[in-house]
């Protein structure tokens, strides 16, 4: 079995991210998962056990007191060293804001090729083929890196398998001064400004989104209430973001976040092509809109022609009554 290097994107407070199980599960299907982590102090036994439970066979745990002083330079060094030490058949990195930058730099540094925003991958006769979902899910494209190291960035939430647990072997390494010549510096860091009791939009199993039909920022609270009742993340159409109902980080669509949840609920969203491109690969879509000709109904598994201000509060009450 070839080695597969997996980047575990620990938070700056050393939490294992939600992307780790999917990356390790895909790695376990392609070969032997080698988890690479970067932290300020050596990784503790609790984290090692947790990564083993998620499928890491071996952990390449690097640390540096300076790890969070520069933008991603220590991480690129750690992955470069792990690649050199373990000669993997592929590298898996989350398609996150930082993951994409790390993958780009790593590819140039190692002479590898990037397969970006991958939703799945297969190994066949030692060659790894990545699957991409293109143009909002209209196309499925298979691609490979025939003569160099494939570096894959994996879309959050794309893999919901769990790898078999391991009792991992560990090597701890202290990183030297970073090798990048000139870097950007991190001067301050703060946690996500959004409500951390809600799941993150990327990778959430349930997403409730609101559109222009909500009419105002005050009314948009209804979207949040239904999201909380369903334990889901909050999204929005571009029209709602442009109207100032909610921050642009909630925007689902061609520009903004692409989601593939188990359940997507669209409230007061007409379903313009740009919005559909970011959500039409959801397993189940429910739409409520007062305009019966809204294009969102063409792709909804359940469409309700009605007033969101009448239907949604009733749904929330019924959900509360069940609980």
């Amino acid at each position, binding site marked *: 079995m070839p080695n597969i290097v997996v980047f575990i994107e620990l938070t*700056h407070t050393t939490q294992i*991210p939600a992307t780790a199980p999917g990356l390790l599960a895909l790695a376990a299907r392609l070969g032997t998962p080698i988890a690479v982590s970067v932290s300020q102090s050596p990784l503790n036994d609790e984290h090692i056990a947790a990564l083993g439970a998620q499928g890491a066979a071996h952990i390449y745990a690097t640390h540096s007191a300076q790890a969070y002083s520069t*933008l991603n330079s220590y991480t690129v060094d750690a992955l470069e060293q792990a690649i050199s030490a373990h000669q993997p058949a592929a590298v898996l990195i989350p398609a*996150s*804001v*930082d993951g*994409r*930058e790390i*993958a*780009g730099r790593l*590819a*140039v*540094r190692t002479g590898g*090729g*990037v397969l*970006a*925003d991958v939703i799945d991958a297969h190994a066949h006769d030692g060659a790894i083929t990545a699957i991409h979902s*293109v*143009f909002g*899910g*209209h*196309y*499925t*494209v*298979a691609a*490979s*890196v025939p003569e160099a190291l494939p570096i894959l*960035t994996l879309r959050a939430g794309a893999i919901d398998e769990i790898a078999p647990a391991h009792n991992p072997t560990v090597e701890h390494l202290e990183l030297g001064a970073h090798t990048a010549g*000139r*870097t*950007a510096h*991190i*001067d*301050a*860091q*703060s946690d996500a*400004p959004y409500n951390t009791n809600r799941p993150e939009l990327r990778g959430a199993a349930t997403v409730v989104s609101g559109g222009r039909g909500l009419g105002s920022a005050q009314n948009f609270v209804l979207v949040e209430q239904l999201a909380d009742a*369903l334990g889901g993340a909050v999204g929005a159409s571009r029209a709602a973001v442009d109207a100032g109902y909610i921050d642009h980080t909630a925007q689902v669509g061609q*520009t*903004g976040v692409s989601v593939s949840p*188990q*359940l997507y609920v669209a409230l007061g969203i007409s379903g313009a*092509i740009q919005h559909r*491109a970011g959500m039409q690969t959801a397993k*189940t879509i429910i739409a*409520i809109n007062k305009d*019966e000709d809204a294009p969102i*109904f063409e792709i*909804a598994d*359940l*469409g*309700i*022609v*009605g*007033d969101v201000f009448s*239907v949604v509060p009733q*749904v929330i009450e*019924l*959900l509360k009554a*069940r609980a």
Partner: protein
Amino acid sequence: MKIVVLVKQVPDTGEERILDASTGLVDRDANDPVIDEISERALEAALSVKDRDKSTEVVVLSMGPSDASKAIRKALSMGADSGIHILDDGLLGADATLTAQVLAAALRNADADLVITGNESTDGRGGVVPAMIAEHLNLPLMGSLTTVNIGSASISGQRRNDEGTQDVSADLPAIISVTEGFAEARFPNFKGIMGAKRKPVSTLAAAELGVNIAARTKISSVETRAPRSAGSTIIDEGQAAAQLVDFLTTNRLI
């Protein structure tokens, strides 16, 4: 200060976009090519520096087929000073690796204090090219910024990654990528449109940049996913909320 803005021409997202099933490449005849909106926001960030300091030189750099010249002309009409068009049939369908090699080679000769680009294009969405260019040119990258302050010798700004926000800074020269949080671009005015015709655009081929055309990735298959079909639609007469909750229960979604 000299700022180079990377501009990408893409298929309009307001229309159905088509991939050629035999090559995996975008069918450019299927819909109107436009400047990617995020490229326009990157240009706006550069033009706002020029608004404050008229000595600022703004150059747009684009790699693309012959009609990408329209995107460059539009950028010039909005206020950029000159354009560089990398035009080479051999670059058709270039992957991120090759694209970054070519853009980095062109930037190496451009002597920019600051390179501004979008964080990801609406067609590729890979978001790896800015970092690849930064690595090629040994430049600091401040990627996925939501705000930026551009000084004469250094830049600072805020970026949002998947866990929160960061205040970041770097000395110039540097490369930054902007997100949707940046201001929308200005419209070209009549004077700008007339003036754009006299602004210089140089055209370069890959060989002139010393780049050997070789992609690392290979597309092996393209399949069209069956379009989603509508399920049932009901009209609310007071019963829809209960039907919705039943639907969630039946489908084990709650």
